[in-house]
């Protein structure tokens, strides 16, 4: 059901854990929907120098977390805010249609972590406009099946 790359990120996920004294921490999802992701980041000069995740979720949620944290390490905050679930899926070489929402989780968790960082530092980012980390958490389950 999953391709080799997804399986590899799922079986041997990168960046598992929590950064101590992280500059930003965000969680998204809820165990009630069967998926909850926490991402912590270290930021230096507006650049993400480290990212770690912890995820309660299915294979695709874990693989998305792994690949998404890989992707944002080295990105500027603005670049990271632009990251879409589509890019995450592409990086993974595709996900089954019913599992697309699991990657949405990752880009939301990243945004939440950056939001936390912005709150703590008082910075403003264009990519965060209109973003509410506490918005309806099971939104991602209502996506159309084909994406």
């Amino acid at each position, binding site marked *: 059901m999953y391709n080799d790359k997804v*399986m590899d990120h*799922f079986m041997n996920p990168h960046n598992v854990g929590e950064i101590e004294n992280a500059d930003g921490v965000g969680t998204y999802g809820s*165990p009630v929907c069967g998926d909850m992701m926490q991402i912590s980041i270290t930021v230096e000069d507006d650049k993400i120098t480290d990212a770690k995740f912890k*995820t*309660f979720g299915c294979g695709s949620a874990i693989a998305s977390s792994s690949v998404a944290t890989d992707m944002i390490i080295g990105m500027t905050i603005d670049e990271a805010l632009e990251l879409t679930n589509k890019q995450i899926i592409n990086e993974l070489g595709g996900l089954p249609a019913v599992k697309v929402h699991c990657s949405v989780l990752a880009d939301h968790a990243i945004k939440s972590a950056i939001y936390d960082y912005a709150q703590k530092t008082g910075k403003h980012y264009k990519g965060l406009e209109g973003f509410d980390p506490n918005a309806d958490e099971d939104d991602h*389950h209502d996506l159309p099946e084909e994406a």
Partner: protein
Amino acid sequence: MRQVYLDYSATTPVKQEVVDAMLPYFTELYGNPSSLYSIAAESKEALAGARKQVAELIGAEEKEIFFTSCGTEADNWAVMGAADALRKKGNHIITTKIEHHAMLHSCEFLEKRGYDVTYLDVDSEGRVNPADLEAAITDKTILISIMFVNNEVGTVEPIKELAAIAKAHKILFHTDAVQALGNVPIDVKELGIDLMSMSAHKIYGPKGIGALYIRKGVKISNYLHGGAQENKKRAGTENLAGIVGFGKAAELARTNLTEHIKHTSSLRDYLIQQVQENIDNVYVNGSMEHRHPGNANLTFEFIEGEAMLLYLDMNGIAVSTGSACSSASLTPSHVLSALGIPVERIHGTLRFTVGDMTTKEDIDYVVSTLKNVVNKLREISSVSSEKGW
């Protein structure tokens, strides 16, 4: 790598004796049982033999067994056939919240076409309370359908009591016995069952063959219309080899029943005990007293079922998250929800089912693998016993 199949409730391998019994009916004894010449007569005899074998497994008469293409068709036929035949008498059907989709989706179809359906609750172990059934009956009730053994948590329902209530009100009583067949003793006469669904592929027979028991005297409408097969009640050229295979599997199930129950329940109990000893924050769902002998439905807190399933698969172990036919869906199990299990726990639930080919070594391998898998996934997880949900 060791291969351990622990999903016997999803389907079973076909036993070699069953395949051997089927084989001649493909290439040699291929006559259409409806034809009049000699090789067709042999086919007809083979059908009769299989009908007897299935009848004997459940204490029915041969004439009361009607072969179908699967358990799903038997369920559809029972409910659609009763609904159609008794439309003038009423339009109310009573079933439960924990039925298989074959029953639930048939009922939903009927609801859109003018029928009322009551879905009974179950208790935290998955048992229907007979008093609830009694209370749900109206003068429009035409069918009561309550499954014998639930496919996810393995709970055995109090069929005899429930059937007696139906009988007292002169209402047809159907039970989906797909998971019960060959796993619990069944005597349809003693239990007072009017209609009962069965499927071969859960008892080491082939997939794509089932049967509906229709008690003598019970009249429901046909569902597959056409030729005069199955005593004019179910049309379609008979799945000859499949029926022969079902017959053989039924005979084996009957003669092995005691041994099968002993073997599977002792390994299942060992599995549960070992898991509880080696892994913390584990829950057993369903009744321990009234339970399918091979079923262990376990919740591993703080992690998610599909992830566990795939990790186990990488280690050669086949288990399931809920029923096989909903495994591609994301909605949490309707059965576990009906038992009142919190949704976050439902997501961390696996069903293990032990069968005739399972060994103690298999269980040891599964428990040690499971321990690693659970540990690894708990390390990845964003929730834990310290942090909480």
